[in-house]
């Protein structure tokens, strides 16, 4: 399986380079907003399950689109994440390209395609229809890509409907059993975890083999960081000192948490899925992970009460906009695609998204009726109001995810010191900067 994966990514890399050459010189300059308004079909792809918040909201949006455009046939196809991830460049470079599709945000995905001229520039449309005003600045970061395909500035190539952020899930029943309150500072949080350790309960469900552990380390680093540091780390504004106070605190505290028994030693080999299941089985009282679990927990946890709170004391949290709606350059119905995006940003579609366990980007909390989902969205609005989305630690460099997983695993099983881990993760980061010429 690992070999197979490596093969796949090698193939993808090969493709990326060859397509980069092929796509050069592509891209039309005809970007009037009426282009394709008379098209009779709208081919639409996304890869969200039909029961997920996005799936439900977007189905409704398709219905509304049909009512607004009676003569147009909507050809919706549900795709696999893997298929789009592997093939987007090839598909968008062919006549089989859809008219509008969901695509991953980030430099390696939407950024790369925009650089190759495969995506339509949405800057003008976004200003005209007010999408830019609906999104705050940290959400907009992932919609804009410059000429090198690096996010944060330049033209707008996508529009997100939802957002995601990392928060703390807790088992209310276990908190009650040991008479614990929801912590509001990091100190209180530590005391809560101490109580669990004294009672022979490992407090944190952690998946060390995948993204969760590195997000905890990043969260801890963010507790000492400000927006300028995030801009430096994610958008390469200034050079980041990996031995500076932020990451040093993150790595050392993470190590401390392992030593004190907050994080089980065996969690180095646990996958994210198993972490989620162990929390939903009630084996761990606390799990620090993303809002993408929310809808699933609402449906699946029946045996105990649970709730969420933001990581205590932090103003910055890992998180970002969700995936983007993009309009391929080869779309034959661009004007219709813009109309569809506009419908997905309408308050009622946004509210529907919120009421089904998603985090809408432009929802009015008053229109969210479900109390459980209200908690999720209120927390998000708090983060968003403080401009507190700090993206994810693995974003800055290609292949950085695996570097971070290996580094944090070293911390969990005690084979590496925090200092060694920081040096280890700094190297690929700096190499990437050199590649970009920064």
């Amino acid at each position, binding site marked *: 399986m690992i070999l197979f994966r490596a*093969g*796949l990514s*090698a*193939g993808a890399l*090969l*493709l990326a380079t*060859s*397509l980069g050459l092929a796509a050069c010189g592509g891209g039309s300059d005809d970007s009037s907003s009426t282009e394709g308004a008379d098209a009779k079909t709208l081919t639409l792809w996304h*890869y*969200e*399950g*039909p029961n997920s918040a996005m799936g439900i909201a977007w189905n409704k949006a398709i219905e509304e689109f049909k009512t607004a455009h009676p003569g147009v046939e909507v050809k919706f*196809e*549900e*795709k*696999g*994440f*893997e*298929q789009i991830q*592997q*093939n987007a460049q*090839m*598909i968008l470079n*062919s*006549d*089989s390209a859809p008219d509008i599709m969901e695509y*991953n945000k980030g430099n390696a995905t939407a950024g790369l395609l925009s650089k190759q001229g495969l995506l339509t520039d949405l800057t003008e449309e976004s200003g005209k229809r007010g999408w830019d005003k609906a999104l705050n600045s940290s959400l907009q970061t992932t919609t804009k890509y410059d000429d090198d395909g690096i996010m944060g500035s330049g033209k707008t190539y996508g529009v997100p409907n939802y957002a995601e952020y990392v928060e703390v899930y807790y088992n209310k029943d276990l908190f009650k059993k040991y008479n614990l309150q929801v912590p509001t500072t990091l100190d209180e949080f530590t005391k809560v975890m101490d109580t669990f350790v004294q009672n022979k309960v490992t407090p944190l469900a952690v998946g060390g083999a995948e*993204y969760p552990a590195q997000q905890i380390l990043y969260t801890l680093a963010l507790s000492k960081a400000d927006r300028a540091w995030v801009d430096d780390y994610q958008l390469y504004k200034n050079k980041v000192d990996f031995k500076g106070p932020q990451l040093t605190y993150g790595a050392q505290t993470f190590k401390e948490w392992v030593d004190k028994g907050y994080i089980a030693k065996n969690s180095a080999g646990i996958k*994210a*899925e198993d972490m989620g*299941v*162990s929390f*939903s*089985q*009630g084996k761990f009282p606390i799990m620090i992970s*993303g809002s*993408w*679990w929310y809808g*699933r927990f609402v*449906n*699946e*946890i*029946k*045996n105990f009460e649970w709730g969420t709170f933001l990581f205590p004391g932090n103003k910055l949290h890992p998180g970002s906009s969700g*995936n983007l709606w993009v309009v391929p350059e080869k779309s034959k119905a661009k004007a219709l695609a813009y109309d569809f995006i506009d419908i997905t940003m309408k308050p009622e579609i946004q509210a529907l998204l919120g009421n089904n366990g998603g985090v809408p980007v432009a929802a009015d909390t008053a229109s969210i009726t479900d109390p459980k989902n209200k908690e999720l969205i209120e927390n998000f609005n708090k983060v968003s109001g403080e401009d507190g989305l700090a993206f994810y630690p693995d974003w800055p460099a290609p292949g950085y995810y695996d570097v971070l997983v290996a580094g944090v695993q070293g911390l969990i099983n005690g084979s590496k010191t925090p200092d060694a881990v920081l040096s280890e993760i700094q190297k690929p980061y700096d190499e990437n900067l050199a590649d970009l010429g920064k």
Partner: protein
Amino acid sequence: MTLTANRPSATKDAPAKAVKRTNPVRFVILAALLALLLIVIAPLLIITINAVKSPADYASGGPLSLPPHLYWDGIVDFWNRVSFGEKLWNSFITSFTVAVLGVLLSVLNAYALGIGKVKGRLWFLVFFLVANLLPQEVLVYPLYFLSKEVGLYDSLISIVIIFTVIQAAFGTYLLTSVYQEFPTELLDAADVDGAGKLRTLWNVVVPVSRPTLGVLFTFFFIWTWNEFFLPLVFLVSNENQTVPVALGVLQGDRLMDVTMTSSSGLIGILPALLFFLIFQRTLTRGITAGAIK
């Protein structure tokens, strides 16, 4: 005399049989075989358990717990969500066509290389071997470009052509070595009877090597059925997709739906499993039947 001679031999036989039956080594072997069997079917078993478990039961009980009641919604939902019948048909028609064409092409090639003794056949074989060893990832971009040029991108025909060639490369390699050992007496006899080259092929060579061809056919079918990467790249529209590509729909960005993935895995593997069971006898016959009779 005969009586006394017979008696001791009879009493000797009985304990010998008993020893054979209670020999502890036999039990150890049996236990080891059972354990091995369990290891082999464990993944299938776990998939089956989770396929009929509701997501809530999975969340509270984990992957190894037995479902408290059978839950078929996962399978039904998945079937309707990807219109699985259509995918089954796509997979069947491509696998079947590839298997037939692949075997045909292999026979023709191997007849020329193995029996016809074409000049430079060693190099042909080396070429086919190398073609076999080439990872599909390397082929993807040229194939993508070519299929786009001839208008076969996003079409089942492209998959049929590609896999016919890929499978036939292996088939040619294998069948050539079988045909090199082909009994010359039979060929000579055909020659004496005045059969031409084509007649020798259809009336002598093919019937004699039918078990081997059966094996090739079965393998080509199952291999093509299980192919994921190239169909994923070439079959863009949902209506053209094959079973393994359709299973990929369930894989999300960060989340996976374990119970539905298990359901899909179960109904995805069943057809190939059935096919294998049906043709299993062909396989064993093909392996036991050597080239020389």
